[in-house]
């Protein structure tokens, strides 16, 4: 279509919109409200899912984990990665942040309370490179190599023991030589809620304290690898497999299949929700555009008699729907902007969700929205697709009219 023809068609389409201004406004308002609701809903869901995924990857699991073969089936102090320090260095050289974790079990007690715990040894400074654990502190301070008696514990564990920062904690275990290991520690920090496993039983100590407690001299039991900045989990997995072909290398999706499925299902659920809302809108558009076509059958016949091609008539009807959709997108996003700003800055107070876990992932007490390409792009593009589909039938009907029949229409 020539530019001049297109401009003329846009002008006619625009005028046609306001023939029945009330109907057009109702249609635009319905699209605007649906888009507004979907953008806010999508960004809240992205915030929730993004936060859960971030905590899972950034704080707990990482993108990829490396273990000694068989360790995950039967965790034991004796199945270690040997030259774990070299492996962490090699991964870092390739641009993949990595951190080593030393893992052991024990029994912790404070006052009259006791509970089984997982003791995790790490290098407090090096760990920050590949893990967001230090940033999840709810109270107190992060571990320090200069304070080997300090521990950071999970939030529910702290509640179970009734301890706070500065309280003492006794840990009992079995050292590598089979003897009894025990020591007294001071709670340096309490983590916020992000994972059921860490909340209930996580006790983090510096590597030196771990080695001292268990009398352990071997390598790390787990290496957590993150994707390179801007890269993907698949890249990190390939790099880890290349550097440690004889070890057990798995992505977070393999390690946490239930959580991965849940996140995927939540995204699919979001899309289903959008589809349902938009199908309702599609029916409204279909009705409005069919009415617009039937009211103007005679006139559409005239346009065809005067030489408008079927494609041109189809373009006219699509443009009319397109203009309404365009107005709805501008209005919907304009109205959504302040709500999205508020929700991403202040979030929703969800005290009831605090501490609640789903598939091992914890909810925060505040629910923030996340504005990204998906949360805006998906509702907008789905609206455009649905409207295009809805208007296709009336558009094709108009395009296929025989001018002579249409002009006789009463």
């Amino acid at each position: 279509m020539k530019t001049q023809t297109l401009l003329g068609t846009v002008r006619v389409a625009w005028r046609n919109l306001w023939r029945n201004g009330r109907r057009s406004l109702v249609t635009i308002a319905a699209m605007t409200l649906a888009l507004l609701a979907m953008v806010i809903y999508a960004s809240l869901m992205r915030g929730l899912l993004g936060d859960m995924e971030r905590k899972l990857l950034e704080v707990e699991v990482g993108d990829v984990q490396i273990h000694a073969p068989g360790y995950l089936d039967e965790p034991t102090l004796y199945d270690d990665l040997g030259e774990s320090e070299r492996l962490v260095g090699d991964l870092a050289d390739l641009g993949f942040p990595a951190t080593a974790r030393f893992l052991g079990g024990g029994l912790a007690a404070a006052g009259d309370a006791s509970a089984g715990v997982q003791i995790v040894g790490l290098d407090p400074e090096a760990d920050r490179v590949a893990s967001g654990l230090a940033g999840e502190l709810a109270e107190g301070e992060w571990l320090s190599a200069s304070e080997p008696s300090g521990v950071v514990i999970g939030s529910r564990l702290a509640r179970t023991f009734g301890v706070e920062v500065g309280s003492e904690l006794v840990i009992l275990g079995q050292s590598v030589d089979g003897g009894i290991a025990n020591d007294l520690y001071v709670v340096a920090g309490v983590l916020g809620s992000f994972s059921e496993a860490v909340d209930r039983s996580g006790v983090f100590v510096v590597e030196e304290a771990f080695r001292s407690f268990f009398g352990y001299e071997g390598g790390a039991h787990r290496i957590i690898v993150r994707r390179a900045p801007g890269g993907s989990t698949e890249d990190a997995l390939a790099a880890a497999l290349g550097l440690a072909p004889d070890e057990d290398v798995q992505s977070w999706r393999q390690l946490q299949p239930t959580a991965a499925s849940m996140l995927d299902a939540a995204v699919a659920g979001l899309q289903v929700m959008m589809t349902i809302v938009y199908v309702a809108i599609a029916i409204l558009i279909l009705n409005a555009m069919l009415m617009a076509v039937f009211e103007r059958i005679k006139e559409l016949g005239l346009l065809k008699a005067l030489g408008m091609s079927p494609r041109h008539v189809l373009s006219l009807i699509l443009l009319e729907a397109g203009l309404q959709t365009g107005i709805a997108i501008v209005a919907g996003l304009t109205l959504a902007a302040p709500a999205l700003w508020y929700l991403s800055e202040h979030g929703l107070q969800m005290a009831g969700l605090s501490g609640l876990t789903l598939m091992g992932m914890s909810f925060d007490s505040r629910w923030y929205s996340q504005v990204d390409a998906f949360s805006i792009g998906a509702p907008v593009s789905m609206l455009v697709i649905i409207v295009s589909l809805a208007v296709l039938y009336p558009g094709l009907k108009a395009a296929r009219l025989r001018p002579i029949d249409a002009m006789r229409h009463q």
Partner: protein
Amino acid sequence: MSQPIVQLDGVTKVYRQGSIDVHALRGVDLEIAKGEFTAICGPSGSGKTTTLNLIGALDSPTSGTVRLENEDLGALSRKELSEIRRDRIGFVFQAYNLVPVLTAYENAEMVLWVQGAPPEDRQRKVMELLEDVGLSGLEDRKPSELSGGQQQRVAIARAIASDPAVVLADEPTANVDSETADTLLDLMERLNKNRGVTFVFSTHDPKVMDRARRIVRMVDGSISDDTVKDAVT
């Protein structure tokens, strides 16, 4: 007669109404040359509008051929027929048939923007035409703000804007009063003489028949008489 721009050879048209075949045209042969001012007349159901629709590429014959500037319309696709209507045929309808959301100016230039003509060409041509049909100063009025006669003038301007080979006018004076009908006929006659626009009317208005230089009479789907007045006088 000079080289005809419209040629109908053995054209029949049969409509199916329920289980009955209605023979609207029964073997019509007709030639119309450039510059003619021809009226096809006859009683209702005689086939005059059907003839106009076939010449205008709005309908296709059951048998026979319709040629416009020597091009067989039956051999063309729907898209090509659209282009023929856009570029080579002008229509004037009984009920004016203007687009209500467009102004007089925009209605008159409609075929030109469908063709994709540059804005400056459109403006020059449409302003000249509107002046020619006596609508200067009324360019910005919508059809609802114009009288019946004024609306039909806009329709005439629209019909000739693209310099078509032929203008087909279906009962153009049927919806206007006698005085307005005279004015419209004056206008079309002038356009025919001054610009060489070929007009073919379907009518049973004696005023039109009086002005036409050729009268084709139809009865029951056939041409019963074909008179060229100039040749008679």
